[in-house]
């Protein structure tokens, strides 16, 4: 067992963990933050994506001990002061989710994506979330949701959220 101290969504936690404990299990089972999901055992799905020192990582592929002394952000910490993050608002306004299982990972991945590239093209968004699988939405509306959040974060006029039909 090893003692680790991490700051999760601004709150400090100290706990002792087995060296082999995956970070995702630590977050879900020890900290009871179940918004971070598990969708695979091969680092493919991205449902477990969180921010580790501001960088999006798949928390199923990081050991809890590797997070010692670091900052962790999960979906639970995204809405600051009771207000939805522009990405959360974007997903809701643009029907960017169905079952919601991939959503926390998508959101956390998109946080970093927009930090690096505040005005991404559709193509850049698609490549940017290529490590996160969604089986429900067909991705059109996830792209739209991220574009909406990008506009909001830039302070631009918000795009129309009504569905467009051909």
């Amino acid at each position, binding site marked *: 067992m090893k003692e680790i101290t991490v700051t999760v969504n601004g709150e400090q936690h100290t706990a002792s963990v*087995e060296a*082999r*404990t995956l970070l995702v*299990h630590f977050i*879900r*089972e020890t900290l*009871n*933050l*179940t*918004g*971070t*999901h*598990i*969708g*695979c*055992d*091969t680092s*493919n*799905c991205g*449902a477990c994506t969180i921010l580790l020192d501001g960088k999006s990582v798949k928390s199923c592929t990081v050991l809890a001990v590797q997070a010692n002394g670091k900052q962790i952000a*999960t*979906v*639970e910490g995204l*809405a600051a002061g009771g207000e*939805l993050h522009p990405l*959360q608002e974007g*997903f*809701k*306004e643009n*029907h960017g*989710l*169905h*079952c*919601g*299982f*991939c959503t*926390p990972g998508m*959101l956390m991945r998109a946080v970093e994506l927009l930090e690096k590239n505040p005005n991404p093209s559709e193509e850049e*968004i*698609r*490549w940017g*979330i*290529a*490590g*996160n*699988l*969604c*089986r*429900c*939405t*067909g*991705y*059109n*509306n*996830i*792209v739209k949701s991220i574009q909406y959040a990008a506009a909001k974060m830039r302070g631009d006029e918000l795009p129309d959220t*009504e*569905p467009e*039909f*051909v």
Partner: protein
Amino acid sequence: MIKCKTSREIGGMGHPIKRKEDDRFIQGKGHYVDDIKLPGMLYMDIVRSPFAYAKILSINTEEALKVPGVVAVVTGKDLEKYNLHWMPTLMSDTQMVLPTDTVMYQSQEVAAVIATSKYAARDGREAVMVEYEPMTPVIDPFKALEPDAPVLRTDKEGKTDNHIWHWEAGDREATEKVFASADVVVKEQMHLPRLHVVSIETCGCVADYDKVNNHLTMYMTTQAPHAIRTVIALVAGHVGLTEEKIRVVSPDIGGGFGGKVPVYPGYVIAIAVSFLVGKPVKWIEDRSENLQADSFARDYHITVEMAATREGKILATRFKVLADHGYTDAAANPSKFPTGLFSIGTGSYNYDTAFMEADAVYTNKPPGGVAYRCSFRVTEAVHAIERITDRLAQEIGKDPAVLRLENFIKKEEFPWKSPTGWEYDSGDYHTGLQKAMKVIGYDALRKEQAEKRARGELMGIGISTFTEIVGAGPSRQFDILGIKMFDSAEIRVHPTGKAIARFGTKSQGQGHETTYAQIIAEELGIPAQHIQIEEGDTDTAPYGLGTYASRSTPTAGAAAAVAARKLREKAKKIAAYLLEVSEEDLEWEPGKFYVKGAPEKAKTIQEIVFAAYTNHPPGMEAGFEATHYYDPPNLTFPSGAYICVVDIDRETGEIKVRRFVAIDDCGNIINPMIVQGQVHGGLTQGLAPALYEALVYDEEGNILNGTLMDYLVPTAVESPHWETGHTITPSPHHPIGAKGVGESPTVGAPPAIANAVVDALSHLGVTHIDIPITPPKVWKILKEKGVV
């Protein structure tokens, strides 16, 4: 444009209101099975077979039991003592819970390890020693039918072969006659390979048996909680777990697509263990276990033929199917329909002669034959008819769009009796295809293709114009294990005019909390935002058969409308009493009754409901509640016209879907935003089998792509920007004219894509390529034809 009868504030049918369920999901507050943690909960892990077919010589649990934290190891022999080692499948076949002597497919459950933590359970799993004697498996379904093939189901007394059932539809002799004298006959053989639904949440449960009260609460990933409760009672009734002692709770479900309909052995083992140790037991499978052992979809080998005149008038079709069911028939079809609704395969075309037959076989593969966003074999049928229609166009040198337009059933010919006996409720196929052609610019694309072809570039245009069949179903024909396939809704309106409604279905992302509220809002004028929807708890919801096969809107949606109409009748009586007029003098407008000719004399629905609790008319029952069990008079028949454009790299065989236009007709639309979302998602799930996905086995029965590293689920990069629209042809028999939409795009997209690829290569003499059409397959063809 969709016309709405209610204001946006009320949010009835047709309004693209935002989803009520989203707030919890975007804030990490969804509540999925793996999020459940109960005091004293134990964790279960499962030892699985490395062989596809083997005798179990011994299972040594000694070392496993020494692992710190391990409390028990359960084998088939342990379950046998309680007669819990076998269970029925939904198709009245039998399936092992845990084997006592033989394993029948790779990754089959062999033993379960129970421990105080997830990690200890996994350590225990690694320490269980199983000795096997491998046998030669039967993997090829055609070989399984050969006379000298080993008989796999030796557990079935008197079984002398691997044949499961034979099924037929249509008229064999009449079809033979037409084929014998037709100008043109085209024929193709195709395989629709095994697929896996890969909902991003895997399957799992927490079984919580309370010894003192002899009561089981089963939290599980199921699309059909009531049916599961009945199945558990059938399996475990003899040990005292009768149906009133069982509560099944299906919390938030992270995608289902049919894969969460069956009862998997893991669920039953968890129940058995919880029953024996009196503690809650959690079982959550890994993705790899999910891919390797849970129900598959498809695996149909189809020979399809079409007879026509030289001018291209379709005269008849003939289908012959070999269905590989793995070691047991664990499909999730209605009892009387072993091939599901495959007989929809005569398609959208006007002809009166067809014959279909199918045989099912056992092989050493996992059981299933359930869904991949379409459980009832419609996808298989549509692929065959849409491919062979293109093949005919190619044979006689006619444009595939023109051929379709000439053969479509006309709008005024509905209701239309199909050659296999279905009565299509309504449709307008011409308008759909013409709209799709206009949006995509069909004629210009054909010109572009001709120019490109002249330059040696490979571009293809593919069409699919499908007829779906959903909403199972009328109870005279449809049941599962004898339980009729109606569905239910219960509405309770509180004194202040806000409501709760409960259903026997279960959303796995379809947005029922929003759409059901909209249906009730439409009928009662209570704003959708004030109608709370609940599903998935068998203790509170009325009985229903669950959500799959696009049946929720056709069945439970109808039940909601009818229950709400019962309430509106009651509201009318109360309004008449309050306004001191007769009922005939009243007129309804969403949200209120008013006196004809005196609109200022009115009672709002909220006032009426309040009166139902505070001042109800003498002789009338107080309260404002209604329940309805809806038994549909017919199925519904959504349709679609899809056009796809692909570009193929002639050096690598890589296929790029450049554009894809989907025009769906699902009848009246409840929420256009949600319908569109369903179509987007279904299209990506149609792209997947067309170009990427298939579960592949070698001759030994080893699965070659049993993890997400090599089972290729499309990402946002592979998935194109879908262009979607609709035509609206209401179902004449459905209370709100809706038809259901979830499956349609997954059914319609694969043949559109396959047809586009074949079209790109048709000038080389290519007439068919089996899906998934991968770059190596295309490259091989290009090489053979001397293009590369």
